[in-house]
């Protein structure tokens, strides 16, 4: 029972917040709604018995990614700029007026229905456990899997994280002065 309650609240939180991310204009608010959606997904993980994944989700997204995004939004002004040369409008129908929105929505609907059909077909073709009630701690088994079957992606992801760390530090580092030759080139123009 408690699980069902948790599922319902989490699902509502997830869907509602994710739609809000799309709907709201203010980017800062969108980030906060994303936070809500991510917490909801963590709740969904919890209902699936994925305790470690759920807490990792909160740890990484709440403690790291969302704060980074908030920072980025704040540092870049947080506004959706109006493009000076709106080329997309002429290229893609979904980007401009009401008719184009309508066409875009219809395409999306077709796509959505196709996907739904695919999912339902898939569900019919595989054997699905209807009710799985027992939960078991996953941490130890996850740890063993990470250093046995999945050790290569595990090590690769450590390399990836190191690269991301160094890369982010280098990219975002404030540079003191522009190189001499650039200034000289500007003087020529």
């Amino acid at each position: 029972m408690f699980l069902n309650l948790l599922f319902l609240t989490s699902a509502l939180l997830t869907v509602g917040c994710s739609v809000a991310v799309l709907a709201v204009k203010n980017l800062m608010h969108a980030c906060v709604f994303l936070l809500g959606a991510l917490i909801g997904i963590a709740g969904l993980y919890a209902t699936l018995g994925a305790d470690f994944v759920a807490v990792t989700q909160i740890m990484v997204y709440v403690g790291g990614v969302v704060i980074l995004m908030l920072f980025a939004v704040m540092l870049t002004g947080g506004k959706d700029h109006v493009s000076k040369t709106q080329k997309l409008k002429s290229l893609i129908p979904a980007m401009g007026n009401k008719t184009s929105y309508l066409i875009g929505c219809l395409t999306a609907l077709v796509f959505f229905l196709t996907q739904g059909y695919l999912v339902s077909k898939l569900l019919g073709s595989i054997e699905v456990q209807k009710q799985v009630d027992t939960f078991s701690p996953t941490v130890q088994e996850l740890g063993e899997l990470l250093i046995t079957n999945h050790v290569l992606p595990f090590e690769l992801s450590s390399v990836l994280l190191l690269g991301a760390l160094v890369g982010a530090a280098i990219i975002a580092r404030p540079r003191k002065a522009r190189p001499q030759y650039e200034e000289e080139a500007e003087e020529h123009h």
Partner: protein
Amino acid sequence: MFGLEWYLGISLVLFFVGIAVILSRKNIVAILLGVELILNSAALNFVAYSRFVTQNLDGHIFSLFIIVIAAAEAAVGLAIVIRYFQINNTIHVDEAKELRG
């Protein structure tokens, strides 16, 4: 009570919301938000299938890797965004076309 199809439905909604965010927003940070949503929908799928179909923990492992990759992507992506903003004073995606063919 709530089976696999519920989770797949939520995941599908997340996926399309993510695509819509990417398509409709002009701000690079907002596009990154959409990417996060899409990644999470995939991760949710993995865990759901792991719970209801395969009954092992491989799906959890993939979710963990998706989270790791999302974190790395966010760090580098936002660093690039901030740097780009410092140089061009905008993060409008349509303005970023210096490498246009």
